[in-house]
Structure formats: C-alpha cells, structure tokens
C-alpha cells in the first residue's frame, strides 16, 4: 500500500460502502448522459455552424442544437453533483490528495465552467446578432468544456495511481500538476469524447423525429445526419476503446481479456449490445437507443470495476467503518421520490402546453 494515502476519516461512513458505491455508479450514469450530449453536442454544433455558412439545413440544425446547450450545462452540473458527493465520501483520501496535487488546473474548472456557460447563453440569446461570429463563441465554450472533461479524466486517473504522487509532491506544493501526460489519460479521455459524439449523434437523430412533425423533409435529413454520426463514432470507438484497453497496466488489462470472469463478461455483453445497436438503429431507433444505453450503463459498471482493479492493493472501501444513518437515508429516498415526481409534473405541464412559437 502506498504510504501516502491518507488515513480514512475517523467518523464512520453513514451507510455501507456498497450502497454508497451503487449510488455513485447510478448517478454517474445519469450525469454522463447530459455530459455527453453537452460535449459532443457542442462539437457537432460548431461543425454544423461552419457548414451552415453555405448550407441552410446545417444552419437550422445548429440553431436548434445551440439553444439546447445552456440547458444541457445545467443538467450536467446538477447531475454531476451527486456522483462527486458519493465519490468524495467513499474515496476521499484518494480524491482529495490527487485534487490537491493538481489544485490549480482542478480549480480552474470552475472558471472555465462559468465562462463556457455564459458563452452558450450569449450564443443562444444573440444568435442572429452574432451572425458569422457566432461559431467562435460556440467553439470557445465547447473547447472550455472539453478541457474540463480532460481534467476530470486526468484527476480520476491520478486518484487511482498513488504511486505517482510522491514524485509530483516533491516537485513542489504549488498544485500545478496536470497529469495529462500519464499514458492512460489521453486514450481514456478520447474514449469518453468519441462516446459523446456517438450519443450526440443519436440525440440529433431524436431531434430529427421532433422536427419531422413540422417539416418532414428537414426532420428526415436531421435524423439521417445524426445517425451518421452515431454509426461512424461507434465504429471508431471500437478502435479507441481497444487503444485504451492496451494502454492499461498489463495486470489490470488482463482482467478484461479473460483474466476476470465478471470483468470480461461485462465487457463482452457491453460490446454485443453496441453491435446490436449498430445493426438495428436505422430501422428501429427505439431499440437501437435502448441497447446503446445498455452499453453505456454497463460501461459505467466496468469503469467502477476498473477503479477497483487499480486500487486492489491500495484501498478497499468495504473495509471502512460504517455506522448507518438509516432514518436520514430513508428521508433522502422519500424526498428523492417527491423530487422526481415534482420534476416529472413540471416537465409534463410544460410539454403539454402549446408552444408559443410555431416552428
């Protein structure tokens, strides 16, 4: 065990580690959906805006997706709070240490988030006025959110590799480490980025279905264009995923290629679902979407197994002391259900109401 890993908090966990980890995995899945639509959607909006200078369909598409970006930021942040909360309570000794080692880049996420968020709003409210300059605003915001994604990957890797901490700390306490040169960071980030392009392509295909109600030809084109991105990015993903797998330390990689039954099994099922999705999505959008969401969900579980593999000899959450706060947990579940009901009611009311702007 690395001697630098801080002692666990003297106060016991308020619930069994397994429950907190399950919530971590589940809420991370919920976060990754809007996050992917944001990162990939931003990129695809930039592309459509550029093509849109000559092509009216792309211009219309960019305008529609750009309007969704600020809302996606809000969803991404909101859904990101929960997994980070559960991560910190279970893996605090690792997470706080790695964050401190890269303190400035990590803190700069807040500033970039603020700028990127305002950029999308600016773009959304001033689309017509900005004219040809609009694309630069989208590009800047998208670049900021993409860097944020890279920094997240970077910290999530650094917290799993305590053996590297010592060298970083010796170089100073200024918190200026980026950790992006670590060999698994870039393929890992690229894996997420390509996934975000695929999911955003799928999102655009669904947007096409909505647009088809008002304008059949445009809707059909949007659907096909989005699916094109989904299919292409998913094919590319097989290569990127393989690169990420190869970049992993051999002992860990082994678990996913036959060494570990659960790890290998999960990976095979996840890949099989992705193949089914690719084969069916053109004809049955619903089935293709459901299967790819299955892949994403399994990948989140696989990611968690990967973390456990990294930390096998370093940190075992199941050994942390527990003193359950059952009543408060029950209250949380109750309030969560009320919250979901409230949000569902509001969204239902909104969807039901007639749109003031016929499109």
């Amino acid at each position, binding site marked *: 065990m690395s*001697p*630098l890993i*801080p*002692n666990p908090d*003297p*106060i*016991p*966990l*308020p*619930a069994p580690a397994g429950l907190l980890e399950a*919530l971590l995995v589940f809420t991370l899945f919920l976060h990754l959906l809007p996050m992917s639509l944001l990162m990939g959607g931003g990129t695809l909006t930039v592309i459509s805006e550029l093509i849109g200078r000559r092509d009216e369909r792309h211009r219309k598409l960019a305008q529609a997706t750009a309007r969704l970006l600020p*809302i996606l930021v*809000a969803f991404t*942040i*909101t859904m990101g*709070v*929960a997994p980070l*909360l*559960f991560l*910190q*309570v279970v893996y*605090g*000794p690792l*997470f*706080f*240490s790695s*964050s*401190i*080692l890269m303190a400035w880049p*990590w*803190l700069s996420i*807040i500033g970039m*988030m*603020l700028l990127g*968020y*305002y950029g999308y*709003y600016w773009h959304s409210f001033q689309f017509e006025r900005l004219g040809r300059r609009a694309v630069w605003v989208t590009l800047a915001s998208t670049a900021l959110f993409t860097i944020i994604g890279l920094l997240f990957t970077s910290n999530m890797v650094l917290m799993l590799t305590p053996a590297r901490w*010592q060298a970083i*700390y*010796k*170089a*100073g*306490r*200024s*918190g200026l480490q980026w950790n992006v040169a670590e060999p698994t960071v870039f393929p890992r980030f690229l894996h997420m980025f390509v996934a975000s392009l695929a999911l955003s392509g799928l999102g655009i295909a669904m947007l096409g279905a909505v647009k088809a109600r008002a304008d059949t030809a445009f809707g059909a084109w949007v659907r096909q264009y989005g699916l094109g991105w989904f299919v292409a990015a998913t094919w590319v993903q097989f290569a990127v995923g393989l690169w990420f797998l190869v970049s992993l330390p051999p002992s860990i990689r082994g678990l996913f290629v036959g060494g570990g039954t659960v790890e290998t099994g999960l990976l095979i099922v996840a890949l099989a679902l992705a193949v089914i999705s690719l084969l069916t999505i053109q004809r049955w959008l619903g089935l293709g979407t459901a299967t790819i969401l299955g892949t994403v969900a399994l990948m989140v579980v696989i990611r968690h197994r990967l973390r456990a593999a990294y930390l096998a000899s370093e940190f075992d959450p199941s050994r942390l002391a527990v*003193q359950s*706060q059952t009543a*408060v947990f029950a*209250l*949380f579940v109750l*309030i*969560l259900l009320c*919250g979901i009901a*409230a949000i569902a009611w*509001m*969204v239902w*009311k*909104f969807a039901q*109401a*007639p749109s003031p702007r016929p499109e």
Partner: protein
Amino acid sequence: MNYPVWEIPQIGGGMLIGLIAILHVFVSHFAVGGGLYLVLAERKAYRENDPAVLEYVKGHSLFFVLVVLVFGAVSGVGIWWSIGLVSPAATSTLLHVFVWAWAIEWVFFAVEIAAAFVYYYGWDRLDRRTHLTIGWIYFITAWLSLFMINGILTFMLTPGRWLTTREFWHAFFNPTAIPSLIIRTMVCIALAGLYGLVTAAAIPERKLRAKMVRFAATWLLPASLVLPLGGAWYISRIPRFAREISMGGSPAVTIFAGLSIVLSAILFVFAFFGPFQRPQHFNLPFAFMLALIGLSVTGVTEWVREAVRKPYIIYGYMYSNGITKREQEAIGRDGALWVAKWVTTREVREDNRREVGRNLYEIQCASCHTIDGFNGMRFAVKGWREEFIDFQLQHLSELKGFMPPFMGTDLERRALAAWLADLNSRVPPITEPLAKATAPPLAMATSEARMAEQ
C-alpha cells in the same frame, strides 16, 4: 497533515475560499429570496391587471436566470471545490456526518433548477396558475436547500451535543441552526429587494419605474426589524470565546463585526429614505451603490462568522489546521512528523532542522498563514530571536487564543522556531520546493517509518 498541502502564494487558502464564498453568498441568498420576489411580483401584475408590470417581471426573470442559474450554481460548486483543496480534512468530516443531508440538498437543488427553467421558458406557454405554481415550487425548494446548507454550516461553529452523542440530528439541529436560518431567510428577502431595485431602476418608463422601485424597496424593510433580534439570538448561542473575539477581544474581528452592523444600518436608512419614500427620484447608480453596500455587508459578516470559529474549523473537534483533538493526543505521544502522512522526514537531526521546520510549517501553519503574503510569517516573526519564537510556540494558545496550540515534541518545536527565525536571517531560508533541499525522498522516509513501526 493527513493530506497534501497546497500552497497558494500571497493570498493563502482562507482568502481564496472567502473570495468565492462571499460572491456565492451574495448571489445564492438572492436565488432564494428572488424566487419569492418573482412570484409575488407576477401575482401583483395579474391582480392589478397591469401588462407593463408583467413585462418587467419577465425581464427580471431573465436577469434572474443569468445571475442565479449560472453564477449562483457554478460558484456554489466552486466553494465545494475550494474547501476540498484547502481544508480536505474538514470537508471530509462534513461529508461523513452529513452525506444524506447533502444528498437531500442535491434533490432540492435539482428541483429548483428544473423549476427555474420551466418558469423562465414557460412564460407565454403555461397558463397563469401553473406558471405561478412553478414559481412557488422554485422558491420553496430553493429555501429548503438553504435550510439544508444552513444546518451543515452552523454545525461548524456550534456542533453542540454532537460532540458527545455523534448523532446526525444533534449535528443538524445544533444550537445556532434556527437563529441562523431566521437571519439568512431575512437576508434572502432583503437581497431580493436589493436586486429588484437594480432591475426596477433600469425601467425606462417613469411611472412604472417609481411603482416597481417602491415595491422592491419594501422588501428591505422587514429585515431591519428582524435582523437585530435574530442577530442577538444567534450571538447568545455561539461559544463564549467566539463572542469575546467579536466584541473587543480581537480588534480586527471587532472592527469587521462593527462594520457589519453599521453598513447594514446605512443600507436600511438609505433604502427607507431613498427608494421607499421617494421612488420617483431613484436611479440606476443609486441602485448599484446600494447593491455594493449589500455586497460589503455580506463580505464582512461572512468573514466575521468564519473568524470567530478560530482556533477551530469545527468547534471543539478539529482545529483550523485540520488536526483533530484525537490526532492532537497522538501527536503528543509520538510527535507530529510520525502522525503526519505528507512529510519528507520523520526524524529531527542537527543537520535537517530546517527541513523539519518547513514540514511543520506546512502541516500546522500553512492553512492560515503564507510566508510573504496574507498573514505572512516572515513579517510576523520579524525581529524575533529564535529563543523568543520558541517561547511563543510553547504558549501559542495562551498568547493568541485564536490560534491552535503547537503540537509536537520539543525537538520538533525548536526546529520550527529555527526555520521561522531563518526567514529573516541573512542565510536564504528554504522556501523553494523541497526537491531542491537535501532531503531523503518521501518514500524512504515513510518506509523507514513503517519499518520502525513494525
């Protein structure tokens, strides 16, 4: 000590958190009160059947979305980010005691954000009743998220019975939770008025501007009655030492506490005789001036609230430098270098005293001090001989009650004194990164330590 140290040159960690937190508080309290302002102003427009008022409310809601949903939400995350980097041990404590409270707060936050979006994008789309209901959902969940955070925040100054029982409910409903909730709720309402004055003053049409300025100014009035009472109740519940610090014990804290009261009074007097009594003469610069005073009140008050907690970060449980009372006992037994994780050496020898001193500075002092910037050590010990510094270190908590005692062996303390004395000596002190010093690598030190343990 248990965690690595992040050295922030010049301003130090406390100031960094403070800068983010003060801006967040100024916006987040508006986020709560502003929700009530929106629904009541909207209702006023319907009751008076005044489309001009409704147009103003719509404009105000855009301003609200841009300020609250973006800056409020992101800066709130920013506080979380910064406390984890500067005070990881205390952050970890708050997470362990309150994880479900945070989780509940997250639900309220999520509903709040969703409601704000539906409210904003629902103008012209939803019928009046539904739209108002969504406004109410926004306000209620925003206030509930304040309710949750307030319990956690007040716990830090008055953990009360939790110190012995370790019960969640004792921690959450701690001695200052209710008075603080009353104060903060009032501040929310006052800030809603203050921001409302800014948007109202920007209305071009004179009659409507006067009408909305007076409406917004009214929101500042209840606070002028309730805040003094709530404040007195709150102060009566805080630890005696904290009260003493803010009432003369520490000049800086006393001046800031006084400023908080004086600036609040000025704000209310100006608001009453200005926009409330003479709304027709109110203008945008005046509104910005009031907002600036409001920001100053927020700043000094939050600063005092943080300052009176010293020498603790969680009163009676964890010192400002993140060392718990339990760790203090272990340090008394084994020495600070042996209890700490992130140090470069565990031994004190004649030839490594400066390295030891530097390590001790990092784990016990750097959370509040810098070397050359805010609360700078070089200036603090200027002209002090090593023996005098050593004497001070032996009696820190008696000489400076708001500082934790020095924790460590006699040898460690003398090494720290030597390092501090060196800061002003002609010999260049070790302030560069440790890699350049002739120190054994971290792993060597720690593996030696582990061997010695076995």
